[in-house]
């Protein structure tokens, strides 16, 4: 652990001092000198600090803070510092790390393991950067022994037009000397410093005009039961448009595979919203945009399919029995080449005038002032929610009940699509539902959808492997051992699909059980009550 990061103390008591610069104000020094011999660093250390997180704030939500701390100059150091809510701190050399970067690219060690477990597939991106001027103040007792330390940290935002940040004083305890640290805290308070619970990251974000958790990818729209259904649908679809646009840059720069995944979800939700709720919008809107969003959805499918292959390949390769994982190398290389081609194609589309017009016009249409939205009327949000949820549920029950052991795979695929629609309509109106009842219904549906997802994904991937094998053969890019290994992968998928198929009947029976239906009825009954009340 270098000196660079000593002041980053998880769990230490922190104070803020609005009028302090990079030097301890005289009155604070004098207050501390009543109990200690005070020794302050003559020069402040200048540090660059960049906080890192995934685009969807996974580290922040897990209570972890990851910083890239660097000192200037040719002999400067670069370290990664990870702190958690429990006061644990891990450090690792940052080397020549560039951001964005996947956690797997960090130097091996406990820090990487901890970050990777939380970040998963998501890349680490800079969230905010500051310059810190840090000065250590040592408080000594009569034996001239250091019994407490204070780190004075004057941060300045590196964001354009960043607001000033109050200086922070971090009191750190020397092991076995708890009382002097407490006393130092009391003296700081007496000198006008205020104890703060706001982490330095939040202060830095706030100064840069950002807020934590500004993207989650989840439906997070707050609706009121009695609001007009049309307003509710606009709010729902606007949030999806925000999510879609938020992910474009990450897709264009290939930061990680989840940007495309989230962008596709936003498109699918928009399409389902238009299909299930579009009638409460002015008549031509749905017609006009449904085809544009289908174009966008179709555009993203080839790249996503390749991502799914590439992500699932390592675990599947590990389960090969007859073939050697190394036999798959040509397949992997082929997928990589295909992926580059598909990325270029998708990027062209995302930079096209058609895409800009689609999202631009869609936003304008959703933001039309209330006066220009046609005659008011139609159902209230709660009534709309109850009605559409009930209809979507009924469709799933009807389709699922008709599936027998001899039904073709397509019937399960169709059921899965209707299940997704039900899930989206539940999520859209989540803020109107009783949370425990909502969670129970969503849980019922998720158990069914997981099974259908396993079935369908295995089917798609198996077919893909077959068509990729044919394409590789045509290009003379498929040695025999590779084709045999791909055959084994296809066989693994067939087994997995068979297992999902075998589980389907029990999963669906659980979903369609009297208890499941009762839970769904209880959820939608609330909307009925609002509807009756407003009638």
């Amino acid at each position, binding site marked *: *652990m270098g*000196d660079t990061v*000593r002041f980053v103390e998880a769990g230490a008591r922190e104070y803020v001092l609005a009028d302090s610069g990079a030097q301890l104000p005289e009155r604070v020094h004098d207050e501390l000198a009543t109990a200690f011999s005070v020794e302050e660093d003559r020069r402040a250390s200048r540090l660059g600090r960049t906080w890192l997180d995934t685009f969807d704030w996974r580290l922040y939500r897990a209570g972890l803070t990851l910083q890239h701390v660097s000192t200037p100059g040719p002999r400067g150091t670069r370290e990664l510092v990870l702190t958690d809510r429990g006061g644990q701190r891990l450090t690792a050399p940052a080397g020549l790390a560039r951001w964005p970067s996947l956690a797997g690219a960090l130097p091996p060690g406990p820090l990487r393991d901890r970050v990777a477990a939380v970040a998963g597939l998501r890349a680490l991106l800079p969230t905010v950067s500051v310059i810190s001027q840090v000065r250590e103040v*040592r408080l000594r007792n009569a*034996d*001239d*022994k*250091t019994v407490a330390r204070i780190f004075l940290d004057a941060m300045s935002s590196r964001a354009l037009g960043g607001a000033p940040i109050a200086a922070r004083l971090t009191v750190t305890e*020397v*092991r*076995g*000397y708890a009382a002097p640290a407490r006393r130092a805290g009391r003296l700081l308070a007496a000198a006008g410093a205020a104890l703060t619970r706001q982490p330095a990251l939040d202060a830095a974000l706030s100064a840069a005009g950002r807020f934590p958790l500004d993207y989650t990818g989840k439906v997070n729209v707050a609706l009121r039961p009695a609001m007009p259904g049309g307003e509710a649908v606009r709010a729902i679809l606007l949030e999806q448009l925000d999510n879609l646009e938020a992910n474009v840059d990450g897709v264009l720069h290939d930061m990680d595979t989840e940007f495309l995944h989230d962008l596709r979800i936003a498109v699918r939700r928009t399409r389902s919203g238009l299909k299930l709720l579009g009638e409460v919008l002015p008549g031509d809107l749905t017609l006009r945009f449904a085809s544009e969003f289908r174009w966008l959805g179709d555009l993203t499918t080839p790249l996503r399919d390749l991502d799914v292959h590439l992500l699932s390949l390592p675990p599947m390769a590990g389960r090969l029995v007859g073939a050697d994982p190394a036999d798959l190398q040509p397949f992997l290389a082929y997928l990589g080449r295909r992926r580059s081609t598909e990325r270029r194609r998708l990027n062209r589309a995302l930079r096209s005038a058609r895409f800009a017009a689609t999202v631009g016009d869609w936003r304008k249409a959703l933001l039309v002032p209330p006066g220009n939205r046609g005659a008011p009327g139609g159902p209230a949000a709660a009534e709309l929610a109850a009605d559409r949820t009930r209809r979507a549920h009924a469709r799933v029950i009807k389709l699922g009940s008709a599936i027998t052991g001899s039904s073709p795979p397509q019937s399960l695929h169709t059921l899965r699509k209707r299940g997704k629609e039900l899930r989206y309509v539940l999520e859209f109106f989540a803020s109107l539902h009783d949370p425990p009842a909502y969670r129970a219904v969503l849980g019922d549906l998720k158990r069914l959808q997981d099974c259908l997802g396993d079935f369908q994904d295995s089917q798609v991937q198996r077919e893909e492997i077959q068509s990729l094998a044919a394409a590789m053969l045509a290009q003379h890019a498929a040695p025999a051992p590779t084709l045999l290994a791909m055959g084994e992968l296809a066989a693994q998928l067939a087994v997995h699909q068979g297992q999902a198929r075998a589980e389907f009947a029990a999963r669906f029976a659980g979903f369609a059980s009297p208890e499941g239906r009762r839970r769904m009825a209880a959820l939608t009954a609330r909307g009925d009550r609002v509807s009756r009340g407003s009638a």
Partner: protein
Amino acid sequence: MRVIATYNIKGGVGKTTAAVNLAYLAAQDGLRTLLWDLDPQAAATYMFRVRPRVKGGGKALIRGTRSLDEAIKGTDFDQLDILPGDFTYRNMDLLLDGAKNRVRRLSRLLGPLAADYDVVILDCPPSVSLVSENVLHAADLILVPIIPATLSLRTFDQLTGFVAAFDGPRPDVLAFFSMVDRRKRLHREIAERLHRERPDIAAATIPALAVIERMAAERAPLPVFAPRSPAARCYRDLWDEVRKRAPE
């Protein structure tokens, strides 16, 4: 966690200065280090400016009514903690005599610290006693400072013979010449001859220099106040050798 003990039956041979400097150098190398000052005179504790007092005394530690963890103090240096000496340690023999598994009690007490430290250095009082026997059982490496003289070597051989007779795991034993006066022919001759003949004597030697004696006045490890001194280099060489001999 590696346990290194500085030990000699005789006093005034450079055990404590070695323990203090090696602990400091270990921490400087980034190893989480604990120095346990087992000497009731608490000279190592004094050098780190820590008060020589453990709540409940040696009795509480040996009986386990107070964990070692609670008694540990941070020094002024990163990664380096100290378990202070205490005058009640003078009775440690009696306390150990009454303990279960009396020759491995210290080893048991150190067990829970394994996750917190990479290196523990035990600074032992000069004696042949139950405390020293405990130390010999707890350590992975016994570091024995010897003054280049025939009798010192005889004592060292007695120690290696004693350790060799242990049942179960035996610590590695490494001597180093301490307080070497290059002006004395006997010191030079013995040191040169034994370096050739004995692989259990470290190549690094610690000279008899006034700057080492200043540690007590400065109340700090030597590399802190005389980092470029020849003596500091000698301790660095010794630490490098010890680290190779007792890898983490």
